[in-house]
């Protein structure tokens, strides 16, 4: 490949000289050494830009395309030769060189034209140009010199005889079609690409703007030269230098843009340094900066879920609509991470690979971090589910007790009482006493069941909410209790947990605190339901000692909250439960 490039360089040097000579020797007043040199230099720059791009990124076809454009632009000038064969061949194929340039522009930066319309335009350009140049030479009348050419030269190998001014008219139609219609389409497509590009891609698309300007200037130049009979020399001069300037700038702009990805690679050094002081969940920021894609997301595969999570462990879907690209990074064939990024980064796969390799350890770390977070979330959710399910179960048990056992026992006691009354006229006082005792026992059992059901899950909590349930609780407590509770319903697990915190705390106070009074305060504060139970007793309660309080702590934490016990010896106890309640 190196040989080929060296050969092209040599051919370019030789062809440059030939092109210069042909113009200066044969075009007379149409050209000048300066103009001829400018044209050759423009072509050389295409060749050089192409060879450099080719050397830097051999797999990308843009380099070869640009080099071809350079050679083609040089060969085009050979149509001014006074050799009939050279004239004929390069008159016919020389104009194709502009379409090689267009081809390279539309293939920038990936090396391939991906858009359907762009591909159609370039294909149309190639074929229309070939048809026109061939036709012009076929109808060429040696008596009428072609425009742009040395009027003394009249040899075409294709000529079949004179057709008046047909060739000159065709030349004009050709300019209208190619430099009017097709060039306008090309400018439109270039501008469309700039407008629809993502912000990241747009930064790299500046060369397309240069190309659009160059095409526009060239089109104006060609039109003026073709349709204005005697253009002023100054205007002609201006137009020539403007368009040649743009054409010289074009390969430089393309090469600069093309190499920017290489410049971006210089960021990888910084990337490695920055990774040193990056928290696992911040790796996205570092990669966004290194790859210059502010929209980039880093996702991690969770094999057991067959899905992806972000750095915080939240489940995330990969985009499937094609609006963004996904690159999967692997290490030892194990999936490591997935980068969701701007499509323009696809043109620089090496850059992504390099960044991925540099960040491998950090990514591995972040993946473990995310996995742990995801598992932690799962455990939390499962704890919450357990509490919720247990609550539902308790509610069900409470209703079963009331509607089942308790109901039956009352009915049974009533039947026995009726039987007792029937016996009142005293067949056997012993049986009557027995019945009376049984009814009393049943009454006890009913009372106990009622208390049991209330302890399992008070019905009033389900029916009327936390404030009503606490009021009921307080009114049954053999101790003066100040109650301050906001009305309003909350999710059942939150209400139940808050209720049981107050209930257990109050039970502890009654049993152990020797308090003369207590207070319960329930309020919503910053998205938390805060339950505070305070007494003026002896203190000394703690959540750790396996009491009911530690079980309550677990319960509160299962809902993402926490329970604090502040106890000062002889200074009373304060129990504060905080439960997140989204409201």
């Amino acid at each position: 490949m190196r040989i080929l490039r060296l050969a092209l360089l040599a051919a370019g040097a030789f062809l440059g000289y030939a092109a210069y000579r042909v113009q200066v020797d044969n075009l007379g007043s149409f050209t000048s050494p300066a103009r001829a040199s400018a044209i050759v230099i423009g072509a050389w720059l295409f060749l050089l830009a192409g060879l450099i791009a080719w050397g830097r990124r051999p797999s990308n076809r843009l380099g070869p395309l640009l080099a071809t454009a350079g050679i083609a632009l040089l060969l085009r000038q050979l149509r001014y030769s006074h050799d009939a064969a050279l004239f004929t061949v390069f008159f016919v194929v020389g104009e194709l060189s502009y379409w090689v340039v267009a081809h390279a522009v539309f293939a920038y930066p990936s090396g391939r034209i991906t858009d359907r319309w762009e591909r159609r335009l370039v294909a149309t350009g190639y074929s229309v140009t070939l048809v026109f140049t061939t036709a012009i030479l076929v109808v060429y009348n040696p008596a009428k010199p072609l425009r742009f050419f040395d009027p003394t030269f009249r040899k075409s190998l294709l000529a079949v005889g004179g057709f008046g001014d047909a060739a000159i008219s065709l030349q004009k139609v050709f300019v209208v079609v190619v430099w009017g219609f097709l060039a306008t389409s090309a400018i439109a497509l270039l501008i469309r690409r700039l407008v629809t590009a993502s912000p990241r891609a747009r930064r790299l698309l500046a060369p397309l703007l240069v190309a659009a300007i160059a095409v526009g200037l060239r089109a104006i130049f060609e039109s003026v030269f073709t349709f204005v009979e005697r253009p002023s020399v100054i205007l002609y001069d201006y137009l020539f230098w403007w368009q040649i300037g743009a054409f010289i700038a074009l390969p430089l702009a393309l090469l600069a843009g093309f190499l920017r990805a290489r410049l971006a690679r210089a960021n990888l050094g910084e990337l490695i340094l920055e990774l040193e002081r990056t928290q696992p969940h911040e790796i996205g920021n570092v990669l966004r900066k290194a790859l210059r894609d502010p929209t980039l997301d880093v996702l991690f595969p969770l094999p057991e879920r067959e899905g992806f999570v972000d750095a915080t462990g939240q489940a995330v879907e990969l985009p499937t609509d094609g609006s963004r690209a996904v690159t999967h990074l692997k290490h030892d064939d194990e999936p490591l991470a997935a980068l969701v990024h701007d499509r323009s980064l696809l043109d620089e796969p090496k850059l992504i690979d390099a960044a991925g390799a540099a960040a491998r350890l950090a990514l591995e770390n972040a993946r473990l971090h995310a996995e742990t977070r995801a598992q932690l979330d799962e455990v939390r959710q499962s704890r919450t589910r357990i509490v919720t399910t247990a609550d539902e179960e308790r509610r069900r048990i409470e209703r079963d007790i009331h509607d089942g056992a308790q109901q039956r026992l009352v009915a049974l006691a009533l039947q026995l009482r009726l039987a007792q009354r029937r016996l009142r006229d005293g067949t056997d006082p012993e049986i009557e006493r027995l019945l009376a005792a049984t009814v009393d026992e049943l009454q006890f059992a009913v009372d106990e069941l009622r208390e049991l059901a209330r302890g399992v899950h008070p019905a009033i909590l389900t029916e009327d909410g936390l404030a009503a349930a606490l009021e009921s609780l307080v009114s049954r407590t053999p101790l003066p209790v100040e109650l301050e509770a906001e009305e309003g319903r909350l999710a059942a697990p939150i209400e139940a947990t808050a209720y049981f915190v107050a209930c257990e705390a109050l039970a502890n106070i009654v049993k152990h605190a020797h308090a003369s009074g207590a207070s319960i305060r329930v309020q919503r504060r910053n998205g938390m339901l805060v339950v505070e139970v305070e007494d003026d007793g002896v203190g000394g309660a703690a959540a750790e000692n396996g009491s009911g309080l530690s079980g309550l702590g677990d319960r509160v934490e299962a809902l993402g909250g926490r329970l604090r016990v502040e106890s000062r010896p002889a200074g009373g106890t304060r129990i504060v439960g905080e439960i997140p309640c989204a409201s």
Partner: protein
Amino acid sequence: MLFREGLVRVLADGGLDVVAQAGDASALHHAVLRERPDIAIVDVRMPPTQTNEGTRAALQIRERHPEVALLVLSQIVEAKHALELFSDRPEGFGYLLKDRVIEIDDFLDSVRRVARGGTAIDPEVISQLFGRRRTSSPLEELTPREREVLSLMAEGRSNRGICDKLVLSPKTVESHVNSIFAKLRLAPAPDDHRRVLAVLAFLRA
């Protein structure tokens, strides 16, 4: 079902006419409309959800047929529910634990009293109401003995019944009752009406 049968037997044995039985709220409404009974005895838990259909049915009967006395029975009693049911008209209204039926004579007394326009509030409700701490209530001024008397009044007992219960002389009970009326600042009025007002003051305190 078993309970309802027992209840019907108790009422019939007590010399009351059971004119209709109903299995759900709509059957209850039809029966009340058809029979215009002196009293309707309603269980709080009713089909279909066995939660508070009975409560709602009771409130509707109170609203549409104020002349029909109502006795609400419940598996559990809550002061809050008692207050909701009483609203501002304790006449001809009762709210008792279901198992009070077992003490047949007391229960029949309550039924007759309510049917006559009196009240019957479950002692459990009374004790809950005393358990609530209200600093600014005139109830705070009552002596413990007066509280006892007031809660028995709320249960619906007559002075005679209170004498029996507390083992006090009728004179003593009467002086307690008058003291309660004074402390609750109830204007002189026929005694029955003042008793109702005292109970109401007590419930709302």
